[in-house]
């Protein structure tokens, strides 16, 4: 039992009021300077003798996936996607233009694709670095609070001992019992638990370590690497997909 159920009409991107626009050459300075982060472009030679109409006919089925709306405007296919299916091979791109242009000696496909996913992945390391600061701050605060609590308790104990407040001294919690293994585990050879003294030493050792936000730094690194992989991989996959469609491979 396989197959993907069609999306309900409400899930499809609504037809735009105006004709779809390509992200044109008159882009702002910001887009020109930083557009490479979220835009993937390139060119591909058409097979010899293939006309513009034929090329667009071959490319159009790639945009016939659920959640994709596309229009043919002269020599170009313009598309937008919303909630693209996970297995949509262009799922990472939210919009784009596939235009057939005349290069020096032959027609070529020039594609320009926009991906919010790539942009989000590019920004994600900054988000996780922000989380790192929050983690460091909260850990420092917790440690300071714990230290202050411990200090106050010790001061109280010292005061009680000094003033001879026998009642208060008597309420001190008894030392915890040592942990012991169940006889079955002891017979099967499981190692005995650490003594309370060893556990206290481990805790003291751990407390000496400076506050850490390692997970946040690791994820910042992971997303930086993911961005680089995605930026290269998705551009390559898109080009491969277009080539296969144009050459009928």
């Amino acid at each position: 039992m396989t197959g993907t159920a069609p999306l309900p009409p409400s899930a499809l991107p609504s037809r735009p009021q105006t004709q779809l626009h390509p992200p044109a050459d008159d882009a702002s300075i910001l887009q020109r300077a930083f557009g490479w982060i979220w835009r993937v472009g390139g060119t591909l030679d058409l097979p010899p003798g293939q006309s513009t109409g034929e090329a667009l006919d071959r490319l159009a089925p790639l945009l016939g996936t659920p959640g994709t709306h596309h229009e043919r405007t002269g020599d170009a296919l313009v598309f937008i996607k919303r909630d693209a299916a996970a297995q949509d091979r262009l799922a990472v791109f939210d919009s784009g233009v596939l235009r057939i242009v005349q290069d020096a000696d032959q027609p070529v496909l020039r594609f320009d694709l926009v991906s919010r996913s790539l942009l989000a992945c590019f920004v994600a390391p900054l988000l996780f670095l922000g989380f790192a600061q929050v983690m460091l701050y909260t850990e420092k605060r917790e440690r300071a609070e714990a230290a202050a609590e411990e200090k106050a308790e010790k001061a109280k104990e010292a005061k009680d001992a000094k003033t001879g407040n026998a009642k208060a001294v008597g309420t001190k919690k008894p030392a915890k019992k040592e942990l012991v293994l169940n006889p079955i585990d002891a017979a099967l050879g499981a190692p005995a638990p650490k003594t309370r003294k060893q556990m206290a030493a481990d805790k003291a050792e751990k407390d000496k370590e400076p506050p850490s936000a390692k997970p946040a730094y690791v994820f910042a690194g992971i997303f930086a690497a993911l961005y680089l992989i995605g930026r290269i991989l998705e551009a390559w996959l898109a080009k491969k997909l277009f080539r296969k469609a144009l050459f009928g491979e």
Partner: protein
Amino acid sequence: MTGVRVGKRVIGAEAPVTIGWENVPRVEGGPFKRLFFSWFQPAVLFGLLAFWYYAPNDIAKASVAFGIGLGFRILLFALEWFFPRHDSWQMTWKEVAVDLFYVGLGATILGVVDGFIGDEAMLGVVQDAFDWDKFAWFIALPLLLQAFLITFIFDFGQYWMHRAMHHWHPLWLTHSVHHYITQFNLNKGAVGNPIELFLIGLGIGGLFDFLPRAFLLAGALRLAIGVYMHLNVRFNTPMWWRFLFNTTEHHSVHHSQDFEATRSNYAGMYIFIDRIFGTCVDGEAEVLGLEGGRRMSIREQMLHPFTETWKSLRKRLNPSVAVAAE
């Protein structure tokens, strides 16, 4: 689609669901491949239990458990890549990135929030208020029994929380986000609205005292049983395992597009809890997700409980406006 009667219910009337183990495909191929995919799960489970049971104290620590968990997940990631259960669940760059975003949230900022208002913090307040120490009822029990109790107490609570999420609209609004996933992968369990992830993580295990090694053994149980819930790999899982533990098959039924099927298999690890309460359905599904398999963006996943609450309130307060807006 007629569906199949399971107890008093008809499963699979709205969307394809395979019912019954005899109808679930098995791993095919050479003898080594079949051997590997038949024995992998029990071998990992018993191997991990033996390791943590006998590991010397200087090895039996959380950092080693983290390393083993990470290594095991990398292995499963590779298995998903080379031996996917369904091609329609094949990993893509976007799916990996989205899943890791949620894993990252869980490992960082949600952990911080949990430290302030999570179950440990809440139980701490209760214990302080009544001057309770932890209940040491279980500490003298055999280690494996303690490990089972740690996981069972949590899973039993999770079963009822999960079931409540499917039957009470306010909780469903938070949990429904997780049901918009349209395919299974290793990290899909982490995908969901943060409110739901917080709620489903609540437990009362913190009230009880256990030996430190029992926690490591419980972690091994959780890893070796729970990790398969959202995995895109097919195994020839033994029948005793399918009877006791939750599997990808069980959980895929829970995530299918068939409404009745989604109201089954609530337990996280121990499917026998579902068997006890009559909510277990043995089978599998490939076509997953809500709204016919509409994939939700991260932005919508974050906002969904709030926007839906707002819509519900508007509808309740002023039905005529709500109808007009629709």
